[in-house]
């Protein structure tokens, strides 16, 4: 009960404030919330969902999965090896600083204009938080834990799978969490180019065709989508990092 109140409290207050403040709005680009909500119902019908939201979600999932796997794999390699880190870090930093929108033409060159391109754009953008956090997490593994693993001959995949990844997992989780919302943002950006369906495409299309309440309703939908995904993420994280949260909370709460 209390948790529900916490989850809903502030959003309800904010929405109410928005509702009241925008009630008499004359501004073309900032219509009253009532109008936005009205268009929300009209816009996001079941058809729209299957036509636009589902393809977007599929691209999002694919891109995010690629980024997660790649980010962790490369991150562990880079984090564990000083020389590899020194060699590839500037190159990675180089690509990290390049805005995905300007890279789209290059990606189109290699990946065409289909879903593959969008997945790559999403992966390209959201791999960084995972990668960076993995590198830092791996570097910060307690030296005694590493020594223990070494002393007992826990080596190779077992060392990575059973010791290094779990030890770095809290920080990797932070990266994955960041990546999730970036993935949503890039889903929109990727659908601004060479797309003919998708949530991002629809929102941009609304924006271009001056359907402003519909555009805002799309943005709200994005927010809701992000919220639901992060809820799922939290559930998964809570499960995977039960030991960690238990460890951190054990003495605090009980």
């Amino acid at each position, binding site marked *: 009960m209390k948790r529900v109140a916490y989850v809903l409290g502030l959003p309800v207050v904010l929405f109410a404030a928005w509702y009241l403040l925008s009630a008499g709005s004359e501004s073309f680009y900032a219509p009253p919330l009532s109008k936005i909500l009205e268009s929300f119902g009209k816009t996001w019908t079941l058809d729209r969902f299957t036509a636009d939201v589902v393809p977007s979600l599929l691209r999002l999932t694919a891109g995010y999965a690629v980024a997660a796997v790649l980010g962790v794999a490369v991150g562990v390699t880079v984090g564990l090896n000083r020389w590899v880190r020194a060699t590839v870090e500037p190159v990675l930093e180089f690509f990290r600083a390049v805005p995905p929108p300007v890279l789209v033409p290059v990606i189109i060159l290699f990946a065409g204009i289909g879903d593959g391109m969008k997945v790559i754009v999403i992966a390209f953008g959201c791999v960084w938080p995972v990668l960076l956090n993995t590198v830092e997490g791996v570097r910060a593994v307690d030296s*005694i834990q590493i020594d223990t693993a*070494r002393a*007992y*001959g826990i080596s190779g995949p077992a060392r990575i799978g059973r010791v290094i990844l779990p030890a770095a*997992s809290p920080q990797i989780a932070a990266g994955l969490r960041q990546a999730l919302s970036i993935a949503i943002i890039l889903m929109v950006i990727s659908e601004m180019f060479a797309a003919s369906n998708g949530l991002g495409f629809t929102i941009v299309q609304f924006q271009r065709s001056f359907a402003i309440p519909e555009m805002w309703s799309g943005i709200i939908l994005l927010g809701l989508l992000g919220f639901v995904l992060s809820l799922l993420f939290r559930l998964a994280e809570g499960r995977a990092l039960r*030991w960690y949260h238990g460890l951190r909370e054990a003495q605090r709460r009980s």
Partner: protein
Amino acid sequence: MLEVSSLNKVYRSGAREVEALRDLTFTVDSGELVCLVGPSGCGKTTLLRCIAGLLEPSGGKVRLDGREVSGPPPGLAMVFQEYGRSLFPWMSVRDNVELPLKQKKITRHRRATLVEQALDAVGLAGTESAYPWQLSGGMQQRVAIARAVAYEPSTLLMDEPFAAVDAQTRADLEDLVRALWQRLEVTVLFITHDIDEAVYLGQRVLMLSSSPTVVQDEITVDLPAARDQLHTRADPRFTELRTHVYEQIQAAKLQPGGAGASS
């Protein structure tokens, strides 16, 4: 056989430079149980790390069975002084003890037996599924011991392994280590601050000087091989030996460094 020859270790970090080990030379025969005592901060942990191949010495050599140690040699188990940090908090007690066995490619069935026996031996039956951080300090330390015991190592390095347990448990664990040693003919190097414990457990006791560290003295414990808490500790020879060790450590504290000036 474990040979340590003119081992030297200097920690450098920024301006600070600490010569933890100056010049250590000693050997431990295969299947021998040697206890190491020395003042706090004299370099015992450093020595153990070098022997385990976890730390590169600044000079000198460590050889195990004729081979120079450059990384952790196979069949070695170590109980770390920082027992709390050496347990993996993301694994249950059982998994912590079992993991090294998996690496040793021991069958599942045998693993289960070994884990159960080891936890039972350290008095932790019933906590298998708890996480280490749900245990008391002494219990955590015993998990670390159980992990080493279950591993059935050929070389066992223990760094103040009983520091956090009560007197009674400590006595039990001492007997456990001796039993394990006799059963498997393990080479054991055992660091302790408890002089009685060193004498009770070891075939030999090595005494280190305070930093910069050399071997100050060593005694052979000529007590009978069959020891027990009541009779051995009551033996006058036991008292004699422990007094000797105590005096040597006192001396070590007063005139540090074999060769002369300190760092």
